[in-house]
């Protein structure tokens, strides 16, 4: 019965009231029978034992082989805990660290210094407690607004989720404001959940959001600013006739959430999307409205993909094939592609696909069906979920926000009193060099935090070398680096049919001819703790080079209760391009961007030693044949968190 984790190494003497019983494969019911009989017939206890075991075996074998059989099947059961597998169309993910062997992961005795180091210096986070999805981001009367799922009661998720609110002039320095909406209506008493803002041509702001009702039904509600002349938009009004939308026939009341920003159709209607699912097919329902109070559900789905499960936080927006700017959500026409994005509930990753939107037939078709929503590209190959874009009319760019959860234990979150940050906002552009992916890049305002630049030029690093980079403190950094592999090795290295995959590799310790090489972040002097961010090149048949970009957390911390996976993916590298990476290090969050933002990885890192003065950076090359040349700029980053007088009004 309980074979996966045994307690046989504990040397205590079990008490006679049944502690041993579970390991003998006898069910509790027969165990009770045994206890009664034992008291009753001491002399015949041997006969009774035989009778009981026979009875147990008899009862289980007439069932389906139950516990007795399961004892040999337990090892396979471990893998079920890890994920449900590629065959179901969902990418194999291991959200939980898998339990290997019999030893349960012991929680690390975190000291308060190590825990308090984890708070970030320039990423958005409330002063305490739990946060998740970003909501309704917008720019209005000179201020950037961010709302977010917030739990006022603690550092883990709870049902009284409300909308936290903050404002900024520059997307980097934030002022916390009072909570914008709370769980005070029957239609959102179990949660004021995610929503999006639509700004009408006359400047009016319309907010559509999901409420979880008193019966946990997911409905859509309308809200708007109480005072449009207040640039801080502190007070909000919920439309008196909410909810404006309830789950339509055929849609489960638990599968109807996260309305998108609306866009104008050629007929002058406002159109938006709500993600859902039918069995295991992720779908996007389409609604039209004139007034955001009355809606028509369109017959067709904007798009659906088999096997992807529930689509949360759907996002749908245009990008320009030619320009350098973002586009307002209503734009369409020549030179415009549309991005469709969904957060997959099943594997907690955000997927996107490029395609073409036809507003007449209201369909969106992916450029490449093999890379459709949910089965193709991800915004980010690390921790990145429930993301949402908005059109920033101030600087004419499409900006992406995302929830970055913790990958330590909830126990630690409760101890430190907070959980989750938002990623640094990213601009989104079409990559017209590859034509098949987006480019994401930290908003330029983050550069204002740079100070104390150190430049390294043309450092040559042979295979097996680790080079310390003297840059002062190592917890708040902006690093840009360029790598070149020596041409001789690239040409002479033998072709191989190696199949590389960051996740299943040995990380930075897995030596190949042309990799891994890169940087060790949040590393202590003795390299007891280190987080390698690296490239790994495979030379395939025909001399084709494939480049992988990975972040390796396997030795990121001596703590045993944090995520130790290796994340990453292939990154397109075009002929003549050097390998480039930008890394933002901000205490327990590291955001890495390769090839100008083609492949991005967000990491959560929780060192116990490589903190404060002991956090350092190294350059490394662990390839067996290639010599690399690296040039780097490394800046210290100033702190953006500050308390302003707005915080007097805080939650």
């Amino acid at each position, binding site marked *: 019965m309980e074979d996966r984790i045994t307690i046989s190494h504990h040397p205590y003497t079990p008490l006679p009231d049944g502690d041993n019983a579970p390991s003998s494969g006898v069910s509790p019911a027969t165990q009770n029978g045994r206890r009664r009989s034992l008291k009753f017939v001491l002399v015949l206890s041997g006969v009774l034992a035989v009778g009981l075991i026979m009875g147990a075996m008899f009862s289980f074998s007439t*069932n389906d082989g139950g516990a007795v059989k399961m004892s040999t099947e337990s090892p396979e059961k471990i893998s079920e805990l890890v994920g449900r597998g590629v065959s179901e169309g969902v990418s194999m993910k291991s959200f939980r660290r898998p339990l290997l062997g019999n030893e349960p992961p012991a929680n690390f005795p975190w000291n308060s210094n190590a825990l308090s180091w984890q708070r970030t210096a320039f990423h958005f986070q409330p002063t305490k407690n739990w946060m998740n999805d970003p909501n309704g981001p917008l720019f209005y009367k000179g201020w950037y607004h961010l709302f977010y799922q917030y739990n006022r009661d603690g550092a883990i*998720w709870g049902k009284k989720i409300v909308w936290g609110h903050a404002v900024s002039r520059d997307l980097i320095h934030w002022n916390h404001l009072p909570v914008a909406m709370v769980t005070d209506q029957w239609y959102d008493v179990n949660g004021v959940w995610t929503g999006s803002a639509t700004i009408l041509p006359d400047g009016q702001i319309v907010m559509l959001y999901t409420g979880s009702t008193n019966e946990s039904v997911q409905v859509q509600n309308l809200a708007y600013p109480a005072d449009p002349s207040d640039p801080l938009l502190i007070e909000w009004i919920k439309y008196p006739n909410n909810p404006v939308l309830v789950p339509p026939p055929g849609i489960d009341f638990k599968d109807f959430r996260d309305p998108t920003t609306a866009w104008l159709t050629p007929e002058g209607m406002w159109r938006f999307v709500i993600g859902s699912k039918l069995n295991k097919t992720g779908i996007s329902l389409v609604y039209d409205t004139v007034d955001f109070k009355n809606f028509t559900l369109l017959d067709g789905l904007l798009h659906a993909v088999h096997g992807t499960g529930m689509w949360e936080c759907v996002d749908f927006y245009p990008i320009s094939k030619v320009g350098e700017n973002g586009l307002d959500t209503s734009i369409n026409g020549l030179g415009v592609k549309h991005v469709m994005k969904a957060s997959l509930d099943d594997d907690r990753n955000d997927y996107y696909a490029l395609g073409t939107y036809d507003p007449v037939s209201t369909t969106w078709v992916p450029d490449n069906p093999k890379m459709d929503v949910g089965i193709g590209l991800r915004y980010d190959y690390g921790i990145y979920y429930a993301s949402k874009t908005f059109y920033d009319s101030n600087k004419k760019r499409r900006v992406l926000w995302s929830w970055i959860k913790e990958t330590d234990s909830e126990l630690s979150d409760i101890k430190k009193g907070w959980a989750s940050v938002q990623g640094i906002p990213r601009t989104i552009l079409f990559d017209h060099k590859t034509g098949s992916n987006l480019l994401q890049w930290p908003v330029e305002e983050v550069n204002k935090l740079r100070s104390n630049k150190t430049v390294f030029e043309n450092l040559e690093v042979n295979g097996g070398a680790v080079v310390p980079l003297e840059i002062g403190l190592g917890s708040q950094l902006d690093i840009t680096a360029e790598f070149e592999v020596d041409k001789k090795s690239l040409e002479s290295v033998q072709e191989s049919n190696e199949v590389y995959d960051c996740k299943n590799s040995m990380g930075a310790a897995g030596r190949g001819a042309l990799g891994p090489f890169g940087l060790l972040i949040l590393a202590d002097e003795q390299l007891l703790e280190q987080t390698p961010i690296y490239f790994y090149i495979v030379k395939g048949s025909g001399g084709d080079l494939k480049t992988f970009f990975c972040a390796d957390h396997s030795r990121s911390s001596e703590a045993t209760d944090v995520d130790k996976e290796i994340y990453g993916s292939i990154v397109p590298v075009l002929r003549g391009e050097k390998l480039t990476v930008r890394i933002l290090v901000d205490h327990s969050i590291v955001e890495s961007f390769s090839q100008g933002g083609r492949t991005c990885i967000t990491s959560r890192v929780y060192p116990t030693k490589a903190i404060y003065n002991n956090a350092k950076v190294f350059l490394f090359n662990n390839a067996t044949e290639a010599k690399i040349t690296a040039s780097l700029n490394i800046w210290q980053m100033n702190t953006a968190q500050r308390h302003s007088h707005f915080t007097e009004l805080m939650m």
Partner: protein
Amino acid sequence: MLINLSFIILLLVLSPCSLLVKAQHQTNSLILDTCKKTPNYALCVSTLRSNPHSSTADVAGLGLILVGAVKAKSTAGLKTISELSRANPALKKRLSQCMEDYKMILSAFIPEAEQAIGGDPKFAEDGMNGIADVTAQCVKSLQGVRAPLPSTNKLVHDLSLVTVSIIRTML
């Protein structure tokens, strides 16, 4: 005579087992199918069967029943720890960590799971994983201790992981 007596007692003993067989035939297939996807089939089935509501529950309902069972075992665990601390002052210091852990299970992780199962199940998964972590910690801190606590602890740990896999199927 002794053989007759043994035979009668054997029959007496086997008859509850045959009743058990009958009861198991009546366990509905949803329970069996759902429990097959968990890391501890027998624990899952026996826990669900011992609650009369399980026969008419959907998967979310089964999840809630399991969360309730984890809650009950955790409450018992906290009680055991308190009693042990009182009876055994030498153990009190070692038990204080477990005491805090169990209080956290009951005040934070169980409510999170209860609230989320009906709303956004993935957060219920977080809560139950939180419990598994916490009980693992308690196991470690109690190495060598003679007490019934380790088995209660293991039970809470295993039950919470069973619940995690059931929640996975709800996503």
